[in-house]
């Protein structure tokens, strides 16, 4: 059981590292704020979840259940706060007047105009 958890934790960690790396690459390479937010939120949440899951498995492998529960708590907090934060950033950017690059359709702009008038 413990060996299984250990192996699982390794797998999760490496996968998480990959995703985290990919998300940071996204943050660097994507063209504008909104797309970068995509990378930062989704990929990173996923990566962090995986790494934390790996941590939790490792704790479980060591039989340290409180640590595992705490790790899950951290994950829950991250999961709850990350979308909120990125939503706030996105809204702030838009309200501040940063125009998304190359958007095909922008339905939000009409709403903003409506709000302002």
């Amino acid at each position, binding site marked *: 059981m413990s060996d299984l958890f250990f192996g699982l934790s390794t797998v999760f960690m490496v996968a998480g590292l990959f995703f985290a790396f990919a998300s940071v690459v996204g943050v*660097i390479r994507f063209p504008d704020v909104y797309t970068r937010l995509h990378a930062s939120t989704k990929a990173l949440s996923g990566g962090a979840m995986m*790494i934390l899951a790996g941590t939790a498995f490792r704790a479980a492998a060591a039989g*340290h259940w409180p640590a595992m529960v705490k790790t899950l708590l951290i994950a829950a907090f991250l999961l709850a706060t990350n979308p909120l934060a990125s939503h706030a950033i996105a809204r702030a950017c838009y309200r501040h007047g940063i125009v998304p690059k190359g958007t095909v359709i922008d339905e939000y702009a009409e709403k903003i105009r409506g709000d302002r008038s």
Partner: protein
Amino acid sequence: MTAFVLWGLLLTAALGFWRVIVGPTIPDRIVAADTLATILTTFIALLAVYFENAVFLDIALAFAVLSFADVLIMAKYFEHGELHR
């Protein structure tokens, strides 16, 4: 193994910091800061694994709770130009 992941995360964080340095606009930097906060939170959790001491998880928890507060404040500032509206 953990050491490898730690190295990787640190390099990733350093890459993310590149965005903080060059980020053409402020929201880019905020996004990068958010990214870094998350990465470093997991980094600390991994350090707890590395040192095999559950105490360090508390610090990760504190980060998870508080880093988003910073990002929210930055967003608020960026949206309104002031914080007290």
